[in-house]
């Protein structure tokens, strides 16, 4: 696991041709690692019948809602969390 809880990370802002589990709404956004889970098979290859190996580290990453949605209608303290694979994260510190 490259990143640790509390670390600031940016989600890669790149297109991906094919199945992937990084929603467009967080691409390019900066958040904080909340939990470093473990490694899991890669859905980007597993979706096409491959074994999904090598496994990829998975993190829970939290974002301020107002960083994700500039016009977010809720409270400024509200947050949103996603499970993101390491190869979609960049060090933002």
């Amino acid at each position: 696991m490259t990143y640790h809880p509390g670390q600031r990370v940016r989600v890669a802002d790149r297109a991906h041709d094919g199945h992937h589990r990084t929603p467009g709404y967080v691409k390019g956004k900066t958040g904080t690692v909340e939990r470093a889970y473990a490694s899991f098979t890669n859905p980007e290859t597993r979706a096409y019948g491959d074994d999904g190996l090598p496994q990829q580290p998975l993190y829970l990453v939290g974002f301020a809602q107002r960083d994700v949605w500039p016009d977010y209608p809720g409270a400024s303290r509200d947050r949103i969390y996603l499970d993101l694979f390491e190869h979609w994260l960049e060090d933002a510190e």
Partner: protein
Amino acid sequence: MSEHEHDHPHDPIGNGDEPPAAARARALELLLIEKGAISRDDVRKRIDWLVSRSPADGARLVARAWVDRDFRQRLLSDARSAALELGLDPGPSPVVVAVENTDDVHHMVVCTLCSCYPRALLGPPPAWYKSLPYRSRAVSDPRGVLDEFGVELGDDVELRVLDSTADIRYLVMPRRPAGTEGMSEDELAALITRDSMIGVAQPAAPAPIG
């Protein structure tokens, strides 16, 4: 071969009111069986397993956590082990995470990419959970969604939305309602609704003592 070389008109073969997506799923299932990737038995067993699950299992976990401080800690640190401890099936996901609602923090769960859900502990997800309006608005306007479900949060409460985009399954541990101090674990479990464990409702209020 072009589509209609033969000379008589006909309607396409359908299956009553079956929606196109269901027809597509059925066709895929038949193909996978034909190719030997899965068997009819596999499909039946999975369906039987899924419909045998219910929110009563999740409610047992939460009720125990409400009455047992040590169990609550174990549930929050490893929900999978906590479920096994009560003899419950936590499902195939290797990591199940319980998140606790408090006076200051409220969690709600969505899967924007499909319909990931702790099925082993809550049963099949409700249709609205899989619907596009919930999946899109739960992330961009979650307070608006909660308002529609009848949950009003003060601005001093931090709302945390969990978008379960990968292998982890999330279960919300709702706040224990006031006025339930003397209730047994089974009575408490009856207050813990499915929706309260998704985070779009508070637990049911205890019936007034008559």
